[in-house]
């Protein structure tokens, strides 16, 4: 068990790097607290898996340090770091039985036979694999195999952290849900640091206490699901999380005010600097209302999801989506929108201004 710290970490798969895009992971600074349930969220190719492999020691980072409990581990191999990792595709040892598969990490560490036996049975019980222990592992279904991979990560009681690299990709949707709750339950039971990599926001938001959002090799925000929703620190977090995502409209900053089409918009904080190449205003559809005065728009379409209505509107600066109550009457044709001040943010070069 340990607190994991990543310091000024960057990694590139290329020998020489000329631009930011050459880095798979860049300038990562983060503390993973002991016992936390973290989700590492981001689209495919944003560097999640690279970051995970750096923590476990499968990859040596180009720059930066990795510390476990403030002790440098950058030069240690995966065995010495004592990390458990579960991969996207179930990895099982075909020729072994389920029991031997689960016992394998312990046998490699020369643990006594009866201790192994007790531990394997305990984990098998937890994962509902007890009845198949003497079967050959290769005969199991995909989710059975993934449970074995999972089990191999869990049998070692002293691991510093358990990391999951999109572990439910190959699992059927209905089993996905079951396994996900199982993981959550496991976390509460064994209270070990868990890092869960995924590109699925539902998975991330249901599993984790803290969600770490990655974009183009950088960590753009770390926070609780509520933080990410209410105050996205980066435009990427705004539109990646939430359905539909945040509205982002090009605007001007003038004398501390945010001007959208010549109209001053009240935002969460005043803008102090004016030194950006790209300036935007961001507000989630949930925080927009119809009003008698405000931003003039044309209502384009309304879709009713049952719980609420999603309204597409066209303003002079671009399309704006808003969410209205299912009972609310939607004006047709021209209308005015107002944004809730405390949830409306200004973004300079994609980063929040606060």
């Amino acid at each position, binding site marked *: 068990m340990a607190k994991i710290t990543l310091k000024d970490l960057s990694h590139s798969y290329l020998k020489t790097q000329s631009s930011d895009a050459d880095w798979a992971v860049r300038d990562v600074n983060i503390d993973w607290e002991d016992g936390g349930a973290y989700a590492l969220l981001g689209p495919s190719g944003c560097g999640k898996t690279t970051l995970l492999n750096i923590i476990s020691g499968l990859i040596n980072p180009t720059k930066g340090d990795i510390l476990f409990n403030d002790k440098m581990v950058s030069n240690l191999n*995966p065995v010495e770091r004592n*990390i458990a*990792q579960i991969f996207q595709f179930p990895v099982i040892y075909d020729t072994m039985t389920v029991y031997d598969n689960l016992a394998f990490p312990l046998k*490699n*560490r020369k643990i006594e036979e009866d201790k192994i036996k007790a531990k394997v049975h305990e984990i098998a019980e937890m994962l509902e694999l007890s009845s198949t222990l003497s079967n050959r592992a290769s005969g199991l279904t995909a989710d059975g195999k993934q449970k074995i991979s999972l089990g191999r990560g869990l049998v070692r009681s002293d691991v510093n952290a358990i990391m999951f690299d999109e572990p439910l990709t190959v699992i059927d949707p209905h089993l996905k849900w079951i396994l996900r709750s199982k993981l959550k339950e496991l976390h509460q039971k064994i209270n070990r640091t868990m890092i869960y990599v995924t590109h699925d926001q539902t998975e991330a938001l249901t599993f984790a206490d803290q969600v770490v959002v990655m974009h183009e090799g950088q960590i753009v925000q770390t926070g609780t699901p509520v933080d990410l929703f209410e105050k996205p620190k980066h435009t990427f977090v705004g539109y990646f999380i939430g359905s539909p995502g945040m509205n982002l409209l090009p605007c001007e900053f003038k004398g501390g005010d945010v001007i959208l089409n010549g109209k001053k918009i009240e935002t969460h904080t005043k803008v102090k600097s004016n030194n950006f190449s790209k300036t935007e205003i961001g507000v989630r559809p949930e925080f927009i209302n119809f009003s008698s005065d405000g931003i003039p728009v044309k209502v384009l379409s309304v879709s009713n999801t049952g719980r609420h209505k999603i309204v597409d509107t066209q303003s002079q600066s671009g399309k704006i989506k808003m969410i209205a109550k299912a009972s609310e009457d939607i004006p047709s044709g021209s209308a005015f929108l107002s944004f809730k001040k405390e949830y409306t943010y200004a973004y300079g070069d994609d980063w929040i201004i606060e």
Partner: protein
Amino acid sequence: MNKTINQKAWFFVIPVFVLVAFNAIIPLMTVVNYAFQETFGNNVFMWEGTRWFKQIMLSERFHASLGRQFLFTFIILFIQIPLGIAIALTMPKEGIGVPICLVLMSMPLLIPWNVVGAMWNIFALPDIGFLGHSLNALGFDYNFTQQIGDAWFTTILMDVWHWTSLVVLLSYAGLQSIQPAYYQAAEIDGASRWAVFTKIELPKMKKVLTIAILLRFMDSFMIYTEPFVLTGGGPGNATAFLSIDLVKMALGQFDLGPAAAMSLIYFFIVLLVCWVFYTLMMRNEGNQ
């Protein structure tokens, strides 16, 4: 699904049938024909029943060449399979080394068999061949045309040189298809290099190795050209494997009946061994 009954479809099978008939069935039937009869030419045949089969089965000459054949095949399998796997394991997995290794490995496979035989014959000649001369210069009394041990050594060396590459290429393909996650998981599980080999690589290579063993068994069991060119079956009959012996009987002595019976027995041995081997491998597969 309802199948349409249309007997005209058989017409489409005719080309294949004709082809197979001409290159397999008719020649085989000719051999079967010879195996039960005696002929002195002029298209005069006399029925002999199973006489040639009995004669071959009881013949010491056949037993000896069959024994030599099995010994040879087992020796080369025993060398080529482990050696092939070992070479495949040491080959680079990416980078410029991959095409270089692949081309180098394929070269022996591209050389015609009689050329291989001729090459090794010259290479191993005790007086002028590089190998033969060097061995003698180093103090070994080496002469593959006179000494039985040397003849076997050279034949086996030639076959290993010619065919290990096939095992290497198949094993390499098997190794390359293993997903990196397996190695990463093994690393995290703390597996030793030996455990990675026995628990991951070998099981994952099982299918290609089955094919490699089958191919190498069949090819080596039917080997003819290379030892014929290298040693001609000699010294004496020391390297007269089944095919060489068969050709001697059929074309050298013109004993068509016994030779035909021998070919059939030969054919059934190959078929039987392949079938037994394949069934065993596949039965294991079914258990999984």
